[in-house]
């Protein structure tokens, strides 16, 4: 138990960024860039300690005492949970631009090369004999986005008829053979262990897989998907205690800089800066029809309705 004052006199500072699974590669590069930037600006060495895991689990560890200066999680809901625990000040969502989401992503399908089952859209996922891999929304933030995308598609398809939508989603999850606890686990199950015909995945995750295993998989973009907005925030109480507020704030702000935005794009996250997004138009399908979390009444309501114990997700399994 030694006193932790992170900005020490010798001109170095240390911050901890607790993030979620698919952002590893991105932050690994970003931290290097930011350290350069910070050194130039202040002359101080900054070391960023990374932590990755399922988004919900990561939020929990912060609530339980994992001393993160900043959190960069999969969904606003997880950060709200930290806020409710009193570690982040209210109004964090407006602290940075674009709802504190420096980059976004969406949900796509990853299928095996040749697309034998001829999967083009959500409706193909409920066909008999199609084996779907997606993680469990109760333990994975990414999985929530997956679920909501499917829901959005069905809502559009059945004109909001609740029973039919539910029926659709139920059928879809009946086709799920492995419900991993995290997004990465699901990817491994699909890619390495060869389970399933289609993986519902983060867009960035899908591209990463293509990089790692060229010529083995294809990406299929559905007709409707969701705008996934991973959020970032300063954990005020921790940063205050450790005297890192300034660097933490700068760390997140710099994500919006051109450097940060480009880096996000290179890692297959959609930059929120529209100019830079356009630079990546050959990568991303910019015409994709995307709903947003606001269409579900915001995260708090969506979580309550769909994922809380006894919520719709539970119901489709108890039917």
């Amino acid at each position, binding site marked *: 138990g030694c006193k932790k004052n992170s900005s020490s006199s010798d001109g170095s500072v240390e911050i901890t960024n607790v993030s979620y699974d698919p952002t590893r590669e991105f932050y690994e590069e970003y931290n290097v860039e930011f350290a350069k930037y910070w050194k130039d600006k202040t002359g101080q060495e900054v070391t960023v*300690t990374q932590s990755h*895991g399922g988004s919900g689990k990561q939020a929990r*560890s912060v609530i339980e005492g994992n001393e993160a200066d900043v959190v960069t999680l999969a969904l606003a809901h997880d950060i709200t949970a930290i806020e409710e625990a009193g570690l982040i000040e209210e109004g964090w969502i407006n602290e940075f631009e674009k709802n504190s989401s420096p980059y976004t992503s969406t949900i796509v399908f990853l299928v095996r090369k040749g697309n034998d089952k001829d999967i083009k859209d959500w409706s193909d996922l409920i066909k008999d004999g199609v084996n779907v891999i997606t993680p469990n929304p109760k333990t994975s933030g990414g999985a929530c986005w997956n679920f909501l995308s499917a829901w959005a598609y069905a809502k559009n398809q059945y004109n909001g008829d609740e029973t039919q939508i539910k029926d659709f989603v139920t059928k879809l999850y009946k086709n799920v053979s492995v419900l991993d606890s995290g997004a990465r686990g699901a990817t491994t199950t699909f890619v390495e262990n060869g389970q399933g015909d289609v993986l519902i995945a983060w867009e960035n995750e899908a591209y990463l897989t293509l990089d790692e295993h060229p010529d083995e998989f294809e990406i299929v973009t559905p007709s409707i998907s969701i705008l996934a907005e991973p959020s970032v925030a300063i954990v005020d109480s921790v940063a205050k205690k450790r005297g890192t507020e300034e660097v933490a704030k700068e760390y997140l702000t710099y994500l919006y800089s051109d450097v940060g935005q480009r880096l996000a794009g290179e890692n297959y996250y959609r930059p929120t800066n529209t100019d830079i997004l356009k630079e990546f138009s050959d990568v991303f399908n910019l015409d994709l029809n995307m709903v947003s979390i606001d269409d579900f009444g915001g995260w708090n309501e969506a979580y309550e309705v769909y994922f809380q114990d006894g919520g719709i997700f539970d119901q489709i399994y108890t039917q």
Partner: protein
Amino acid sequence: MSIKQDSVDLKKGAKITKTVLITVSLLFVIIMLVIPMLILIVYAFKDGFTKYIEAITDTYTIKALRLTIIATITAVAINTFFGLFAAWAVTKFYFKGKQLLLTLIDIPFAVSPVIAGLIFILTFGRIGWAHGFLEAHDIQIVFAVPGVIIATIFVTFPFISREIIPVLNAQGKDEEEAAALMGASGFRIFRKITLPHMKWALLYGIVLCSARAMGEFGAVSVLSGHLRGKTNTLPLHVEIIYNEFKLSAAFAVSSILVVLAVIILILRNIVEYKAKKGGR
């Protein structure tokens, strides 16, 4: 003549039983234990030897290895300390509630690693009842190295005492009584009489305890916070690189653990061999 035949058949029967049982054992061990290990090695070298070396000499890997070794050594030291005193108390004295105490010592054997992690979060975490005190003294336990060590101690808690207690029980306490009667101090009795008797069991316990401590995943995972280069033990690091799609690197790092495990198991065999020879 028919009698002779009979006896030959019987011997043949015993031989067949022997062959069948040995075959079954070998198959079981190969399928359940050897092949999983083999697969690990195969995957580890899938990307070639240089990649392998790269993976195991990565700074984070080395840091994780260091933490693992620190946690293991601390856990072994503390559990040995505990095991010796507990074994002494339990085997050399009669007292009420001995059975209950033994059961309590055994609890970590039966507790799910997830729960093992959870209990420390609930105790020392921000939501735990001891948090106020820790906060006031600026002590960080969970999501820091102490937490990793405590969790490791917990899951390996019974290993050493459980190895020594039966040996001391079988020995009885006559020799200690004889020595005490001559006025020997507790420490002297322990060093000269009890320790030589249980040293092989103790070593065996230490070996098992280190094996288990090095491999602990579930409990540590719950309270480590996965801080790269800080609270990641080797098994956690394996999970992380596995999740980074570096399958082969993950298995390469796992192979360090396998090598350590194999070294430990070889040690175990040596210990056992010596014990049998020395015990007579």
